[in-house]
């Protein structure tokens, strides 16, 4: 009994250590004054201060933030429409398969997504005659593609769990469908939209694979900046960058989770008659 309990806590600790020690290692050494990675020489902000003077870092960080915000917003807009159509659209045959298809990009290897998008944009370039093959525009499109299925499934889940009576009551009170969508459906979806946006932001903000196909030399994102810096040599500065990325992403995930939990708990007035009416 006691041995079993000890074994369980040991395995739990082992699992968490496996997950978090490397990250903690980076965070701890980002505050080390030593110029060599992995040596502790007293606490210091010097690597963070150094980053402020690093023009490449600043540009990459700004670009990544902008990209993530735009891509997450685009993914949220499109994903909401998709999730709404699946949850509230006509009961067409094949709605279930459509729902599965929408989620497939979540499981397709990212390298395929990146590669196929590169081919698409290069082809577009020759069709349109505009250089859109690489850079920020294709990155936005690609990152929105990453976030869309996530948003769609969050929205779908929220709508599937929300009484249709609210929307029906609005229709009955004389509101046409677009007004019902804007004044009833969207407000009911707000918590789901917030958490979907945060998740889409995270997916974009730390993406390497897709970005490396589409960024080109002019649109280096923060993860790509880290990646290329490491190829030159690991500096403690990179630890600081990594720490900043971890903090940003973790904040987003935590907020998304909290919003999601709040969404689940959001007190809808209990339907007195649970059955379909």
């Amino acid at each position, binding site marked *: 009994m006691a041995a079993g309990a000890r074994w369980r806590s040991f395995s739990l600790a082992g699992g968490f250590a496996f997950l978090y020690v490397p990250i903690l290692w980076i965070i701890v050494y980002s505050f080390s004054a030593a110029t060599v990675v992995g040596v502790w020489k007293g606490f210091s902000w010097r690597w963070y201060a150094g980053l402020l003077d690093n023009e490449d870092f600043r540009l990459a960080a700004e670009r990544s933030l902008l990209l993530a915000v735009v891509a997450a917003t685009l993914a949220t807009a499109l994903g909401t429409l998709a999730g709404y159509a699946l949850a509230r659209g006509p009961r067409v045959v094949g709605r279930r398969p459509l729902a599965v298809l929408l989620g497939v990009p979540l499981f397709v290897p990212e390298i395929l997504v990146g590669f196929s998008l590169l081919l698409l944009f290069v082809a577009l370039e020759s069709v349109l005659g505009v250089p859109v093959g690489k850079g920020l525009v294709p990155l936005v499109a690609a990152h929105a593609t990453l976030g869309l299925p996530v948003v769609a499934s969050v929205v779908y889940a929220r709508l599937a769990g929300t009484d249709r*009576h609210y929307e*029906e009551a609005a229709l*009955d009170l*004389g509101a046409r469908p677009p007004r019902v969508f804007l004044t009833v459906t969207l407000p009911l979806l707000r918590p789901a939209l917030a958490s979907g946006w945060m998740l889409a932001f995270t997916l974009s903000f730390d993406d390497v694979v897709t970005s490396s196909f589409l960024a080109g030399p002019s649109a280096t994102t923060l993860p790509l900046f880290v990646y290329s810096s490491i190829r030159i040599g690991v500096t403690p500065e990179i630890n600081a960058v990594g720490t900043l990325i971890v903090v940003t992403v973790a904040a987003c995930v935590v907020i998304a989770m909290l919003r999601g939990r709040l969404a689940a708990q959001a007190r809808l007035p209990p339907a007195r008659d649970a059955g379909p009416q």
Partner: protein
Amino acid sequence: MTSAAAAGTVELRGVAKSFDGQPILRPLDLTVAAGEFLALLGGSGCGKTTLLRIIAGLEVPDAGGVRIGGRDVTSAPPYERPVNMMFQSYAVFPHLDVAANIGYGLRAAGLKPAERLALVEWALALVRLEGLARRRPEQLSGGQRQRVALARCLVKKPAVLLLDEPMAALDRNLREEMQRELVRIQRDVGTTFILVTHDQDEAMSMADRVAVMEAGRIVQCGPPREVYERPANRFVARFVGRVNFLEGVVRESTSAGCRVACGPFEVRVAGAGAPSAGSACTLAIRPERVAVAAPPGAFLNELEGVLAATAYFGDFVRAEFRLADGSRFEATLAAGAPAAGGPSLAPGESVRLGFDADAVVVLGP
């Protein structure tokens, strides 16, 4: 007849609906005149809500047609029908406060803020929710939410109002007050009301006509008195009020009535249309038509019963008897008035129960 008054007629012709292959509404006809108050009664799951949803346009019937105000609206969307429905689940918008909930339909209709405000205040006063205009739905009690839902569709003053158990969560005083208000609105505004209720007092006292539904059919539809006094079948008799049944065989049938043998007793029934001699039938007798400890010969029909139990209801007492064949038989007595002809009864006592021939209704076998 003005067009405003005629706008409220509701006609259903052969309306049928099934869900997942399960018939929920059998082909069903119903006509409600403009300004009429119809109460829909029926057991849980018999299709009352489905019927309202078809009238509101939230459900498309598989067959048949719906006309409102003479216009065929069978496939018109809900927002194009002069109909508002109060949902059984209230469906009060959780993200809007009370005033915004009530004003929602006015806003959708494009009313100016000032006009909206006046109407919302009128509706708030009507449902006694003054002062709660800025509350959010989760800060309201069930009964308050119910009144918000009611106010939200009353405020639109539609030609037809569909109310799905609108007062089930209210206490008795408030309910009676609301009932009076609804009847007043119906008279003042000339709105057609179709009200689903499980409260038969509500149905009887408010409605011009009562429709009783059973398993997707309307089994009887008529003025409350007719439905109560001349129930079409056992189901209606039992559903509207309390009733005693006696099984018997018709001995003799004339144009003035019939005699029915019910075990050791013979029951005389007044009225034409009795089944022919020799056929089996069920007799229905309302408990309030039964006299307890009746003097011999005072009533045409007499039964012998043993008092099994009494229940006190404040304004009346319900007494339950056992007949010789073991069946139950109920009578109601005015509380305070001792049973005619003697002191109050004790359980186990054998009593004569009397009722007149016109108190008996013959139902089908």
